[in-house]
């Protein structure tokens, strides 16, 4: 039997048009190859939020010292896979292993040095990463216990460990779970995604010693292959401008509330509407100037850890709390507080 994937009904026509009319059989096949082994999958550890998982490395050492272990899933989807590098061991001959190790280390150092936060839970949570997950797998994720990185299909996506901000984005998902626990749906889900983008991009700027005006504010700039017409997965400075490709279509992220996308897909558009708070952060950081993690990042981090931030917070609530935290740290009439207020106004959000 066969079923049509025609243009009727509620299939967005622009999606079908591009995939069916412009995607080669090879592109389609490779993009879907990730799933060929799904029948044999064993379940991931699941949402073991804040539970420590088995780690090959010793229990806590000194505060502020990372405890990394990198595993090789070997093209399968059983986690964590074979242990290949633990804390303190020298580089291997495997680029994905060493990229994951280094990126997790830099991210840990960023949170420790800038915010005195010791890992995901603030108490030295072991940083476990698995690389070579699946075959041509086009994703990276946090599963509640560890981070997982695919190799990409090589046609649209490179391996996901190439992007420091994406690795830091995934680790930040763990931090968010440990703090506000923002529900991954609609506006609270878009805030979850945005905060992960914010700290992902800050880790990269920190590593590259870039001020706000020197940075490109792109997420995943290393991930798209040369065959794709695009710069990155997302642009925090100009949401909606990251890619415009015959196969992938045009980056649909909005940068203002008037363009907010109401959708059932993607948990209510969490990766789409995150463009709005992403742009607000970029605007605040640019107005404040200097290293974005020192003031704007500090305000966002204070807000993430603010007990008033409910897990179902919407954009207006988050905007109000960032403004409060800017005033608390820098003064009610400070330039920093004014920059935050103006940033939210510029994206059409009235703080609650």
């Amino acid at each position: 039997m066969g079923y049509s994937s025609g243009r009727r009904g509620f299939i967005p026509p622009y999606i079908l048009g591009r995939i069916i009319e412009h995607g080669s059989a090879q592109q389609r096949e490779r993009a879907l190859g990730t799933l060929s082994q799904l029948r044999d999958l064993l379940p991931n550890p699941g949402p073991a939020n804040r539970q420590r998982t088995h780690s090959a490395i010793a229990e806590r050492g000194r505060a502020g010292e990372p405890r990394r272990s990198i595993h090789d899933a070997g093209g399968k989807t059983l986690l964590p896979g074979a242990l290949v590098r633990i804390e303190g061991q020298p580089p291997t001959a495997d680029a994905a292993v060493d990229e994951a190790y280094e990126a997790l280390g830099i991210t840990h150092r960023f949170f420790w040095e800038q915010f005195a936060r010791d890992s995901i839970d603030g108490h030295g949570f072991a940083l476990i990463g698995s690389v070579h997950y699946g075959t041509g797998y086009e994703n990276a994720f946090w599963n509640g216990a560890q981070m997982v990185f695919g190799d990409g299909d090589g046609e649209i996506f490179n391996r996901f460990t190439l992007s420091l901000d994406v690795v830091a984005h995934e680790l930040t998902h763990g931090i968010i779970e440990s703090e506000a626990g923002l529900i991954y749906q609609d506006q609270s889900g878009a805030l979850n995604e945005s905060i992960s983008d914010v700290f992902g991009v800050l880790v990269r700027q920190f590593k590259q010693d870039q001020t706000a005006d020197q940075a490109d504010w792109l997420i995943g700039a290393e991930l798209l292959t040369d065959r794709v017409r695009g710069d990155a997965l997302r642009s925090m400075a100009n949401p909606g401008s990251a890619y415009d490709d015959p196969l992938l279509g045009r980056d649909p992220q909005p940068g203002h509330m008037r363009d907010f996308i109401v959708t059932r897909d993607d948990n209510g558009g969490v990766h789409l509407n995150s463009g709005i708070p992403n742009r607000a952060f970029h605007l605040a950081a640019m107005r404040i100037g200097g290293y974005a993690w020192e003031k704007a990042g500090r305000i966002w981090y204070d807000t993430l850890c603010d007990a008033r931030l409910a897990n179902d917070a919407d954009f207006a609530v988050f905007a109000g709390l960032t403004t409060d935290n800017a005033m608390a740290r820098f003064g009610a009439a400070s330039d920093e507080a004014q920059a935050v207020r103006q940033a939210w106004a510029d994206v059409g959000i009235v703080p609650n």
Partner: protein
Amino acid sequence: MKQLPALGKNSTVRLSRQGGVAAIPALSRPREIEFASCDEREREQVCSVLEGCVPFAAENAGQGDRRYFQIELRYRDDQQAGEWVLQIPEEHAPGDLVRLWKNGTLR
């Protein structure tokens, strides 16, 4: 456990893959199955696949950039019309669901 609603000839099934850090809408590759264009045996096969997914349905299955399959059912009979949405985490998705989404066929 939830039970699948009765799906008659007027039902429509939409399958898509959602989520992921690279959640580019075009990669969700939605596929629509209209029961009106299927024979009875085909409808039974699709219903069997969908029933096999129900135990794995989860809320907010995309958390932390995990990918998942979204099943959207629209059904209508003489008495009522309704809609049902299921999220199936990628790691739990039955092979037949993946095949149906990927190929539009269970063969």
